[in-house]
């Protein structure tokens, strides 16, 4: 994991700044996919505020940018401005597999009404924007959530 680049990327994409100091903690995001019977899925994990306004992108699984348009919720929320995702891109996730990434999230994102979305899409199959939507709370950490189409369970751990 290129944590240095990750940190730099996050510093850029995270709009929330505490004057002079950014307090963040490492959070592990674990998403297990169902056996949906298709090729490797593309995922976008991103944060929006309570009203749905885009905050930041945490991770994009799936390197080829021409398929990113299928992650429609993320595209719509971020307005297509996803220039800074180079450091937070990884391989696509196969059916039945698990994506496990650790990202640094600012403390201020928790218990403030922010929501974590996961968009999923796979080749020749349906696009599933906001397959999972979870509020970011300290209490919700570690609690598995089921997704709509592709995701079996998702947990975020502190």
């Amino acid at each position, binding site marked *: 994991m290129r944590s240095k680049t990750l940190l730099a990327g996050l510093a850029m994409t995270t709009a929330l700044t505490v004057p002079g100091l950014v307090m963040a903690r490492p959070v592990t995001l674990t998403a297990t996919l169902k056996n949906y*019977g*298709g*090729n490797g899925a593309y995922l976008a994990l991103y944060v929006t505020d309570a009203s749905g306004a885009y905050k930041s992108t945490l991770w994009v699984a799936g390197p*080829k*940018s*021409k398929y*990113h*348009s299928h992650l*429609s919720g993320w*595209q*719509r929320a971020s*307005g*297509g401005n996803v220039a800074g995702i180079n450091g937070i891109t990884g391989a696509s996730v196969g059916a039945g597999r698990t994506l496990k990434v650790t990202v640094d999230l600012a403390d201020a994102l928790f218990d403030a009404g922010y929501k974590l979305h996961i968009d999923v899409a796979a080749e*020749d*199959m*349906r*696009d*599933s*924007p906001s397959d999972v939507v979870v509020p970011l709370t300290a209490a919700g950490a570690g609690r598995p959530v089921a997704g*709509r*189409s592709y995701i079996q369970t998702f947990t975020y751990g502190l």
Partner: protein
Amino acid sequence: MLRWLHKVLALSVVIPLMALVVSGSVLSVMPALDRAGTISPPADGISVAELAARTAAILPGVEQIKRLPSGKVVAFYAGTDGPAANVVDPSSGEPVSTYAPSAFERWMTNFHRSFFLGDGGRMVAGAVALALLVLTLSGVQMTARRMGGWARFLDRSRGHAMERLHADLGQLATLGLIVSTLTALFLSLTTFGLIPDGPSQGPAFPTMAQGGRALPVARIDALRGIDLGQLRQLTFPNPADPTDFFRLTTANGEGYVDPMSGELLAWQDHAIGRQIYEFIYRMHTGRGLWWVGVLLGLSALGVPVLGVSGTALWWRRRRANEPIAANVPARTADTVILVGSEGGSTWEFARTLHAALSANGHMVHTVAMNGFARSYPAAKRMFLLTATHGDGTAPASAAAFLERLDEIGASPTSRFAVLGFGDRQFPQFCRFARDVDAALTRRGWTSLLPLETIDRQSPEEFARWGEALSTVMGEDLVLAHVPERPRTRALTLIDRIDYGTEVQAPTCVLRFALPARSLLARLAGRGWPHFSAGDLLAVVPPGETVPRYYSLASSARDAFVEICVRKHPGGRCSGLLHGLRPGDRIEAFVKANPSFRPAQGRKPVILIGAGTGIGPLAGFIRANDGRRPLYLYFGARDPESDFLYRREIQGWVDDRRLTSLSSVFSRVKDGGYVQDRLRTDSDCLRTLVGAGAQILVCGGREMAAGVKETLGELLVPTGLTPDLLKQEGRYLEDVY
């Protein structure tokens, strides 16, 4: 050089290539199957709005409607048990079946793209596609060279069965393979981002709508204006989000539709890069163009057969080029044999000559003509055995010979003899051998024997050359060349009819029973092969090794083996055959002669024969189920004595297997030869030839020469000559 590249490339990529083409062929059928299972939309079209409304009515939670390249319409919706997808009938929106993309197809596609090895696998697949393209192009180049130029590329190929198979299949598969490989390379480069395939950004999401109630889908104008045939995908707005839009993708572009006002909000036409990409994608996979898929799949299926036949050809050539046993070093040899060979068969003859000379105590050195050394100090004689390639050029192992000859100054003290190998069906029969002979004579070399030619690797002609050589060398040289060593089978005589005894031309028509062909024997390669009239029966008299060839007058379907044999005074084999009585046996095998056959099709054929030459012609007439027009010109001595097949011919005319018979006899009043009769029928023959007729001539050498001359004369007004017809495959001879 080209052959070396072709061979090396083929051998190195054979395994992934087979995997790729077989998986590709399997995949190529899928679009056709898909198409077959698709319900067609209503004939006068249906708008997207209409279909969407009907579908939404039946499946309330519909999220997305997709139209697949095969024309299938699929609705994705949130069912009671979770996300579901159904194939819907485009006319009514009724779900027809659950949408279940074939796991087998997906597995096969992933295998075909990358052998399940991710990006590395994709690179390998791309490299193999490139290799196949190079193989196809090099193969095409070699075939053109062999045929004698690009203008003749699509002619019927010639040569023995395996060569013809490889060339014919190659000709058929070329276009499909070029399309497949080029599109595959394009797709590979696109995947790796080396070729752009359209911008990755769609149209910008429009700003929020004013709010209000959403229109019913059927009333949305933007969707009403689009026919189902144009649709790719329609995504419904999220019901939980009042600010969401329809997202529409059609064949022309993509955009958003406002559910409140029904208007098209943001629209972006597909970029040219994307259109090109999609076209190439469709050409490669056949999705949406199912017939292209099937054609490309068939071409791909040719590759394994090409691989096997190519390997067989390579192996045969390699075996023939094995170093000759007991080859004496050049310095000490008193006899040098130089070999010019393309397919390797000339090497076999050289080997026989080498063995015979060595047996007589000579020190023989055999080498390819390209390896012609500056001097052979001890050599007293040099034999140049050479074939001719394509349109009269040097074969592979002699390509550099004439240049090398220029480099060598003084003519040696040894004497030379050139023996050319060729096929009289080729227009430039033994051309290279003649060139070599002329070049050597010009340089003042002394010749031992004049140039001789051997037609179609005939061991008899080779043996005769051996006898001439014996006389000149003053020793006993027997060249008993047996090209392949096929097994002989015993044939039992069932019937014989004698002709011609009164006119001193004793001829008999012998009919043998077909040897039993058990399946096991056939599999072991020992069965009696399938044969047709025009092929040759090789009879091996007991105690001998050199077979004698007779043209077959029957085909396998007639269920007997029939030949016409003229008794030659002192002839060992003909004497044996004439002494046979029903129940007696002979040992024989079949030698294929595929070049002497009526061409496929229904064009008229003119059959010209004399004496025993009528044999194969009778076989062709017998086999003429299709009743194509056949005209027979037959010459003999006396109708009462040696009119072979007299009774059968009448039956064939009644049956319309034979259109007309023109017979002429030399020993009766007002008789003549076959060529005289041809002259009388000049007009008719000219008309026939103008209509595309083919001419087959079978008989003795003199008769064939006379016929050729006569035809040449009578065809002058048409501007054609027998040689021109020969090039097109319309003038075939079986001459002995």
